[in-house]
C-alpha cells in the first residue's frame, strides 16, 4: 500500500487542528464579547462582569 501513512497522518492532524481550532474560536469570540461588555458597563460606572474563572 503506497503512502497510506500519509493520508492517515493527514486525517488525524487535520482533525486535531479543526476541532481544537474551533474550540479556540469559541473561546476567542467569547473573550471579545466579554471585553466589549465590560467596556460598555464600565462606561456608565457600573462594575463589569468579572474575569472568566
Amino acid at each position, binding site marked *: 500500500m503506497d503512502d497510506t501513512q500519509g*493520508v*492517515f497522518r493527514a486525517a488525524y492532524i487535520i*482533525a486535531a487542528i479543526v476541532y481544537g481550532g474551533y474550540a479556540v474560536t*469559541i473561546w476567542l469570540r*467569547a473573550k471579545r*464579547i466579554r471585553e466589549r*461588555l465590560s467596556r460598555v458597563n464600565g462606561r456608565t460606572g457600573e462594575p463589569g462582569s*468579572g*474575569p*472568566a474563572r
Partner: protein
Amino acid sequence: MTSVSRQDPRHGVGGKSVIGGFFVIAALAVAALYVRAILFTPLEAKQGAAQKIYYIHVPSAIGAYTAVTITALASLIYLWLKDERADRMAEASAEVGLVFMTMVLITGPLWAHKIWGAWWVWWDLRLTLSLFLWFVIVGYLVLRGAIEDPAMRGRYSAVLAVLGALLIPFIHLSVYFSMAHMHPDPVVLKPSEPSLPREMLITFLSGIGAFLLLCLALIQSRYRLSELKDEMAAVEAERGY
C-alpha cells in the same frame, strides 16, 4: 445552561468560562483515543494505516448527526414554545454540526482515495448525505446571519431546520435508488471485514464515545457563547446603540 438575566447587565454568564470542565474531559477522551488508535491498535492487513481514518471518520459522522438532530428538535421546540433558549441551542448545535460534518467530508475522501481509488464516490450514502446536509447547515447559518430581528431569525431558521430534517429520508432514498445500479450494494465506507476484531472494535467504540463527548462539550461551549451574544445585544438595545 442558565438563562441570561436581562435585568442586571452586570452579571455576565456567571463568569463561567465558555471552555469548562466538561470540555477538558472530552478533550482528554479524544487524546486518549488518539493514543490508542495510533499506538495500540493493530494495522488492518489490506488497507494499512489508511483504515485507521475510520476511527475518526465514523465518530465524526455520529457527532454530526447528533448535532443536527439536536438542532432539528430544538427548532421544533422553538416553533412550539417560542423559548429563546431553544433558538440558542439550535444555533449552537448547528455550528458544531457544521464542524463535525466538515470533518466527515475531509476524512471520507482521504480514506476513499486509498480504498476505492477515487476521491469522491457518489454511491456512498454517508458521504453524499453528509455533503447535502452540509449545504443545508451552511444555508441555515447564512440565513441566520442575514436576518437581524431575533424573532424572525428564530422563526425562519427553525422552519428551515425542520424542513431540512424532513429532507433527509428523501436524499437517502433518492441516492440509493438512483445510484444502486452503479455499485453492488450501496453501502457506507467500512472496513472490508464484516466484523472488527476485538482490539479494533474497542478502539472504534471508544472513538464514538470520545467524539460524542466532544460534540456535546462543544455544543455546551457554543451555547454559552450564544448567551453572551444575546446579552451583548440586549445591553446594546438598552443603551440605544
